């Protein structure tokens, strides 16, 4: 009798094991990777995945009779490191199924053959009803050479943040709604701040390679666009090595950091430059800082890492003026530049169809509404979310910044060489703020540029005497 019992039990155990193994094989797992970590960098994004996306998507698919597991891979490292990690994953044909992705990497990744257009995941990708709700401009930030590679979360814009309290103490006119109309006015304000509040750094305009892409976008571009210049001349189809506009931009850096010490150059080139800058702004040691909307929503949000408790009352913003009214890009008075992040599906996935389902769910109305709750962005990708989200209407900042600056904003060139050129731009500004003469630095830049894009693709324009 005992013998039979043992046999029976083992048989049952065996069947149970096999069944559970079979089940484990049946339930596919999707992974999503983001450069964020619970309680740290981009914590809101991770919270959105874990609290909303994972349970809701699993539930939705279960209702359709498809069991699926979704897992979140957290990282929380500098962006360049995150980028090399996903590249290595993808080159090895492995890694997460959906990748949190900075839009300006797109051309480089596609040219390297690491991404596949959406039709690879679903031949009916373009029939998705969600596309109609996407703003064309933002949607196309994930488009390269006629193919679509992913979905944008939204976009952003850049401006000058200023500390109203410090402005008031320094006796700046209209400190509650300050808006300079030219570089001259911007510099005069900085000079006055320096005179009245000697312990405060009046103005930080990002420079140097330690700041990474934040130098190119929040620093260099914001000045350069105000001269009407661009680093890539679309008309000529060439990169600009030397030009008067570029020189004017560098002269602005020189005025701020070298000639008049209106900004703190040491802080710009120090290790952890960006973190130090955030901390100094939080501690009211910086009066004006050129930054993006991410700074408002993720850095100085009262609950965020460098939160300012009285942010809404204390921190104001102003549009970045052109050098002189009308001298900005496209003859504009004010300038801004946009980037943004999104999601791309990885060709290494074992479940292309399910990955596309997950991507669609992320980009759906309910997905984006929830995302907006967790992580309010200035310029969301979907029209219906922009209209209906309580976040945009309740939030004075997000409600006003997007509409005001989106029309004057522009984009980086979507070319394969851009990331490398951007690094040279960072070094160019670094040379100027550490004392190299602008003309000499521009000369160096022009040479390095030629090494990257080739001599024939560099335009050196005549300088004014």
């Amino acid at each position: 009798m005992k013998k039979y019992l043992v046999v029976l039990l083992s048989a049952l155990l065996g069947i149970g094991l096999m069944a559970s193994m079979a089940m484990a094989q049946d339930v596919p797992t999707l992974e999503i990777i983001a450069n964020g970590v619970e309680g740290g960098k981009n914590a809101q994004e991770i919270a959105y995945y874990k609290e909303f996306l994972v349970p809701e998507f699993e539930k939705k698919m279960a209702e359709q009779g498809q069991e699926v597991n979704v897992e979140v891979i957290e990282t929380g490292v500098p962006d360049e490191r995150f980028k090399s990690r996903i590249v290595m994953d993808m080159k090895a044909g492995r890694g997460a199924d959906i990748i949190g992705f900075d839009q300006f990497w797109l051309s480089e990744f596609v040219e390297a053959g690491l991404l596949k257009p959406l039709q690879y995941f679903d031949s009916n990708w373009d029939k998705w009803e969600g596309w109609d709700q996407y703003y064309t401009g933002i949607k196309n930030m994930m488009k390269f050479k006629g193919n679509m590679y992913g979905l944008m979360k939204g976009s952003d814009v850049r401006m000058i943040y200023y500390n109203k309290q410090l402005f008031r103490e320094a006796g700046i006119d209209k400190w509650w709604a300050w808006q300079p109309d030219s570089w001259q006015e911007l510099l005069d304000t900085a000079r006055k701040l320096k005179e009245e509040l000697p312990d405060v750094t009046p103005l930080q305009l990002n420079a140097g390679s330690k700041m990474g892409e934040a130098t190119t976008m929040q620093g260099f571009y914001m000045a350069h666009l105000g001269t009407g210049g661009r680093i890539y001349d679309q008309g000529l189809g060439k990169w600009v090595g030397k030009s008067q506009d570029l020189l004017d931009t560098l002269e602005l850096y020189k005025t701020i950091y070298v000639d008049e010490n209106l900004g703190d150059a040491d802080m710009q080139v120090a290790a952890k430059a960006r973190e130090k800058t955030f901390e100094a702004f939080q501690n009211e040691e910086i009066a004006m800082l050129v930054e993006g909307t991410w700074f408002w929503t993720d850095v100085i949000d009262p609950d965020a890492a460098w939160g300012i408790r009285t942010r809404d009352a204390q921190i104001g913003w102003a549009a970045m003026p052109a050098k002189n009214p009308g001298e900005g890009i496209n003859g504009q008075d004010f300038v801004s530049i946009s980037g943004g992040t999104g999601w791309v599906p990885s060709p290494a996935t074992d479940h292309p169809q399910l990955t596309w389902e997950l991507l669609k769910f992320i980009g759906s109305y309910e997905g984006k509404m929830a995302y907006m709750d967790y992580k309010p962005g200035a310029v969301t990708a979907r029209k219906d979310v922009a209209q209906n989200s309580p976040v945009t209407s309740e939030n004075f900042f997000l409600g006003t910044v997007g509409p005001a600056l989106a029309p004057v904003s522009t984009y980086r060139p979507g070319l394969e060489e851009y990331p490398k050129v951007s690094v040279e731009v960072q070094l160019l500004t670094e040379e100027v703020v550490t004392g190299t003469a602008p003309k000499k630095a521009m000369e160096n830049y022009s040479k390095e540029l030629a090494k990257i894009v080739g001599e024939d693709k560099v335009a050196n324009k005549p300088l004014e005497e």
Partner: protein
Amino acid sequence: MISKKTAFFFLLPALVLIFIFLIFPAFWTLYYSLTDYSLLGASTEFIGVQNFINLFTSARFWNATILSFEFVFFSAIIGQAGVGLLLAMLFHRKSGWLKKLVRNLAVASWLIPAVVVAYAWAAFLDKEYGLLNQIIGIFGFTGIDWLNEVPMGSIIIFNIWRGAAFSMLLFTSALKTIPPSHFETADVVGASLWDKIKDIVLPQLKTFIGSDLALITLWTFNLFTPFLLTGGGPGRQTEILPIYTYFKAFKYMEFGLGAAISAVILFINLTLALVYLNYLKAE
């Protein structure tokens, strides 16, 4: 007596390992230095010496090279060897707790893992909370941000502190080879420490000093630890060659160019090694 054949057989496993892990990668690196291999490059192409041309026309490369030589000269040749010799001399033919304490501290600084040491130094030199500035504060001075304001000086002192123990140990043993009567005679005629170094130690320790310099020069030339203190900055003020290589190869993922810089470092190292070896041979 073991035949040559048997000896070779015994050596074979070691030779195979050396070949696989040292010689083969070195040649592989040389090959890569002639290509435009990068993490995101669509295809890797043979571009001849283009990487080297790019390097030799780059101000950033020369900046790194000059800084590297400065770093080696001041921290290794002057610093480590000098301090090591001085410590060895001070405690030569002496005993007591002070000698033990200094020797043990010096050896400890050499034994602690580099990463731990680097963080300890970063804490020591911190502008607000660092011990150094606290001490300076006691005497009524205001401390400065050492790693930002004197970055090169900071990493040079750091490397002297870190590496002096090796030279000290080597010279301590070396001094024992000098007949004690030389020092005794010197003491009788009232020679100073400097006289002893100049007339007794230096002439007799030439070969030891040569080997010591050869070793620490190469080690210091390849040292990456300063990165943990300054990250090559501020700006490019401490961007020595190993850090420059790191940026090119692993931050911007241009492996071909990174390999080219490595090849240049290899060439400099070989040259230095040859100079030292020749010197030792001549002695």
